[in-house]
């Protein structure tokens, strides 16, 4: 397939299908994340990137036969390797008997959160998740440095007039979006704070929140969205999320526990766990939202800059 837009759309459908597969495999949290990330944000980012890099792929000049041979050999070796693996769905597979029973049986007494995925994510393996949050933050910084937005701002009047002329054209979509965005934000908050009891949590909520902001930016123009969400503020929020996560760990150190051991945050260990999970999920949500928004703003801003430079060259 030479049309990259079709390729990207198919990749999005593939993401949605794998989300359905994750539901069938009982991994509701993962399915939630994959649906919002794989089918939503990643498709969007790739589309924005394509608008800047060109839509069609050039025909390959070399023959892919060698690649095919390599792939077949590797695949054959991997399948040979699976012959010793436990069967699909086996109850006594090594993975099922090692750590998981402890999480399933004891997490209710130790953490007091019905959703085991949340309790493992935020409490038992809080340090891992801290690492992930830092990775996301770093990726945000990477995009910031790779795609600096060149500031050649138009005056506000120009933006206004552009907006008015666009308004007629996108009337229906804009009005429906205006109704939907508060609902999306509300849903994101629900996902954020209901993550203890049902599927959800900071990662998913962050992505949904960012999706609402990106939707707004797409329909009302980047400049307007930038005025709603200040560039400095969003960069501060990205750092603040990681900082909040780390500080929770430090506070539990100061209270005499281990790093990220929430039981010491409050007199009652369970209440402490709840408080800790709430705070770090908030930190994660904050970072994920801001990094996604930063990434989108910088991709789209880069594109507008380039267009503007072209117009100036022509004019």
């Amino acid at each position, binding site marked *: 397939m030479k049309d990259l837009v079709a390729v990207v759309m198919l990749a999005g459908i593939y993401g949605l299908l794998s989300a359905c597969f994750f539901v069938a495999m009982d991994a509701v949290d993962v399915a939630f994340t994959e649906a919002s990330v794989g089918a939503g944000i990643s498709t969007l980012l790739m589309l924005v990137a394509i608008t800047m*890099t060109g839509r069609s792929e050039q025909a*390959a000049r070399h023959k892919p036969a060698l690649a095919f041979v390599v792939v077949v050999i590797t695949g054959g070796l991997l399948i040979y390797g699976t012959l010793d693996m436990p069967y699909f769905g086996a109850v006594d597979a090594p993975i099922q008997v090692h750590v998981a029973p402890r999480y399933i049986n004891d997490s209710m007494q130790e953490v007091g959160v019905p959703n085991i995925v949340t309790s493992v994510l935020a409490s038992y393996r809080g340090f891992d998740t801290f690492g992930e949050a830092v990775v996301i933050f770093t990726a945000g910084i990477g995009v910031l440095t790779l795609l600096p937005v060149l500031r050649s701002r138009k005056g506000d009047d120009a933006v206004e007039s552009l907006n008015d002329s666009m308004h007629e054209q996108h009337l229906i979509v804009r009005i429906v979006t205006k109704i939907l965005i508060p609902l999306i934000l509300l849903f994101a908050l629900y996902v954020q704070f209901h993550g203890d009891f049902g599927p959800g949590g900071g990662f998913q909520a962050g992505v949904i929140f960012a999706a609402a902001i990106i939707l707004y930016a797409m329909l009302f123009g980047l400049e307007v969205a930038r005025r709603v969400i200040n560039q400095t503020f969003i960069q501060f929020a990205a750092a603040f999320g990681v900082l909040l996560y780390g500080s929770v760990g430090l506070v539990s150190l100061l209270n005499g526990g281990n790093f990220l051991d929430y039981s010491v945050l409050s007199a009652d260990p369970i209440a402490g766990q709840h408080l800790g999970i709430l705070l770090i999920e908030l930190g994660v949500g904050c970072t994920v939202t801001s990094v996604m928004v930063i990434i989108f703003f910088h991709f789209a801003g880069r594109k507008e800059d380039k267009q503007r430079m072209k117009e100036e060259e022509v004019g």
Partner: protein
Amino acid sequence: MLIGLYNYWIVVVLMMIGFYIVIAHGNLIKKIVGLTIFQTSVFIFYISMAKVDGGTAPILADGIERYSNPLPHVLILTAIVVGIATTALALALTVRIKEAYGSIEEEHIQEKDNQAC
């Protein structure tokens, strides 16, 4: 009874599709899509290992005895979000490459590099 291993074979096939796209196509965007497929195949590998026959989603409720393994779910949940962050970084690099070389085809980039030498 080798048929009980079919989940791994699906994963291997998907992984090889992704691998093939990465090595056989010269277009950088396509390579990134291939990497995403590769990545998702690893996710499917983990999640299908976590599945337990007769188990349900790992959210504690009364009257349910058997749950799927929550640990792989946790690992993959974070991996997905980290995956999108790295994909975004890759796309940013692609955009910069396009600006610097005027193309995102591997061959053109190499030609330009060779000319510069």
